[in-house]
C-alpha cells in the first residue's frame, strides 16, 4: 500500500523518454560529423580571429553606403514582391484547402462530406509540393532560367512561400470557432460571404502577424539567395566575404539586424492595432 502511494506513475515513462532522446541524439551527432574540437585548433582559431578583427570599424564610406542603400532596397523589394506573388496563389489555395468553407459541414454538425474531403486533397498536395522544395533550390533553377538578378529571387520566394502561407492560412481558418460561419451558411449566405463575416474577424490578427513574420523570413531568405546570384544584400555579402572586407561584412550584417528589428516592430504595431 505504502509503496504504491510513494511511486509516481509518470516517473518511468519520463525516464524512458529522456533516455530515448539521448539515444537518438548520439547517432545524429555522428551522422552530421559534428566535431567541436576543430574550432579550437590553433591555426583555425587564428584564421577566424583575423577575419573577425577586420569587422571593426564597419565600412562607412559614402560610396559603400550608397551601394548598401541600393542593396537594402533591392532586398526589401525582392521580399515584398515575392510575398505579394505568393499571396496571389496562397489565398485562393488556402480557401480551397480549408474545411472552414464547407457548406456540408454546416448541416452535419461540423463534419464535411466525404466528397468535399476528397476534393480538398489535391489542393493540399499542390501546397505540399510547392513548399517541399527549398527556396534556395528554386533560386538556383531560376538563376539558370532567367539569369543572375533579383527576378530569380522573387520567383523562388513566391513559389515556396505560397505553399507555406497556403497551408498555415488553411489551418488558422480551421482553428477558430466555426459556429458564426455555420450560422450564416444556415441563413442562406454564400460560402465566401459567410467566411468573411464569420471567420475573418476571428483570424485577422493571427493572419496578419503570421504574414509579417513570413515577410521577415522572406527578407532573410532573399539574403541567402543573394549568395547564388539572386541580387540584394546577400550578393553584396558574398562579394565582400570573397574580398575579405570585414568592415563591409559588418555593415551589411548591421543593416540586416535593423531590417529584422523593423519587421518585428511592424508586426507588434499591427497586432496592437487589431487587438
Amino acid at each position, binding site marked *: 500500500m505504502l509503496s504504491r502511494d510513494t511511486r509516481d506513475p509518470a516517473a518511468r515513462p519520463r525516464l524512458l523518454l529522456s533516455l530515448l532522446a539521448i539515444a537518438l541524439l548520439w547517432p545524429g551527432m555522428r551522422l552530421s560529423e559534428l566535431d567541436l574540437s576543430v574550432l579550437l585548433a590553433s591555426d583555425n582559431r587564428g584564421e577566424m580571429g583575423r577575419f573577425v578583427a577586420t569587422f571593426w570599424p564597419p565600412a562607412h564610406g559614402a560610396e559603400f553606403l550608397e551601394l548598401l542603400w541600393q542593396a537594402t532596397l533591392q532586398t526589401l523589394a525582392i521580399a515584398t514582391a515575392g510575398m505579394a506573388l505568393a499571396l496571389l496563389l496562397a489565398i485562393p489555395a488556402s480557401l480551397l484547402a480549408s474545411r472552414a468553407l464547407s457548406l456540408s459541414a454546416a448541416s452535419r*454538425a461540423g463534419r464535411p462530406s466525404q466528397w468535399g474531403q476528397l476534393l480538398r486533397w489535391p489542393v493540399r498536395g499542390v501546397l505540399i509540393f510547392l513548399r517541399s522544395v527549398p527556396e534556395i533550390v528554386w533560386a538556383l533553377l531560376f538563376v539558370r532560367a532567367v539569369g543572375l538578378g533579383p527576378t530569380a529571387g522573387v520567383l523562388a520566394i513566391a513559389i515556396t512561400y505560397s505553399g507555406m502561407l497556403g497551408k498555415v492560412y488553411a489551418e*488558422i481558418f480551421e482553428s477558430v470557432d466555426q459556429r458564426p460561419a455555420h450560422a*450564416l451558411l444556415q*441563413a442562406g*449566405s454564400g460560402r465566401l460571404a459567410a467566411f468573411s*463575416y464569420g471567420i475573418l474577424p*476571428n483570424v485577422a490578427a493571427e493572419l496578419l502577424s503570421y504574414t509579417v513574420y513570413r515577410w521577415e523570413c522572406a527578407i532573410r531568405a532573399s539574403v541567402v539567395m543573394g549568395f547564388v546570384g539572386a541580387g540584394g544584400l546577400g550578393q553584396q555579402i558574398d562579394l565582400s566575404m570573397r574580398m575579405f572586407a570585414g568592415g563591409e561584412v559588418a555593415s551589411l550584417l548591421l543593416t540586416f539586424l535593423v531590417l529584422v528589428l523593423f519587421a518585428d516592430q511592424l508586426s507588434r504595431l499591427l497586432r496592437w492595432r487589431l487587438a
Partner: protein
Amino acid sequence: MSLHLTRVSLTHANGVQALRSLDLHIDAGEQVAIIGPSGAGKSSLLNVLATGLRPGNGELQVLGEQPWHLSARQRQRLRARIGLVHQAPPLPPRQRVITAVLAGKIGQWGLGKSLLNLVHPLDVPGARAALARLDLHDKLFTQCQQLSGGQLQRVGIARVLYQAPEVLLADEPVSAMDPVLAGHTLKVLCEHAREHAVTLVASLHAVDLALAHFSRIIGLRDGQILFDLPASAVDREQLDALYANEQLQPSPPPVLPLSVQIPRC
C-alpha cells in the same frame, strides 16, 4: 402550409435519438411556443425546421419546398427566407454590432455587396431601426465582445429582424435576460411576426412567458409531442406531466473558445 413535418426522426452523431417520428403542422402566420424539459429535443426540432440539421427519417416541408430534395444552391436560397435566433448567438468577438446585424441580409445580397458592407456599413438606418426596437441602438458601433449575454441575445434577434425572413425560429431567445426584458423582447418578436405575417416558432424554458405571449403551445418530451394545444387549454396537470420526473442533471459544461496553437514552419 408553412412548416410541415411527417414522421420525422433525428439521431445525433453521438447516438442520442433527439426526435422520434414527429408529426407537426404549422400554418403561415401562426405563433407557436415549444416548451419541455431540457434534453427534450427543442433545439433539435428548431434546427431541423431551420434546415440546419438533416432529419434521418421522414419528410420535412418548409414554405412549400422540401429542402433536402433541392440542389445546394436552391437550398441556400430557401434558407435565406428562414431566420433562426440562436440561444447563444455565434458572433465573432471583435465584430461590431452593426456588422453583426447587417449580416442578416447577406443571404439576399450578392457577394460584392456583402464584401463592400464589411468595410463600409451600407444600411446604418436599417440596423439602427432593428436595434432600436430592442432598446440597443446606442450599441451600434461597439464590438460584440463588450456586450453582456442578454445584450448579445438581443443583437442576435436584431439580426433576424433585419433579415426579415418568412419563417422566424427562435431557440431560447430570452434565456439570458431578466424577466421584464424577456417579456418586452418576446412582445417585440410577436409584434414583428404579426405585422409582417411571419410564422413564429420559439422554444422557451419559462412556461409563464410561453403562455402569456403565444397562442399555441407544444409540449415536447423525449423527442415526442406530449400535447399541442391553444394556450388557454393548457392546465396544471399537463404541465406536471410534461416536467414530471425530470432527472436532475448538471448543466453541460460551457463551450470554451477554441485556441489552438498552430505550429509554424
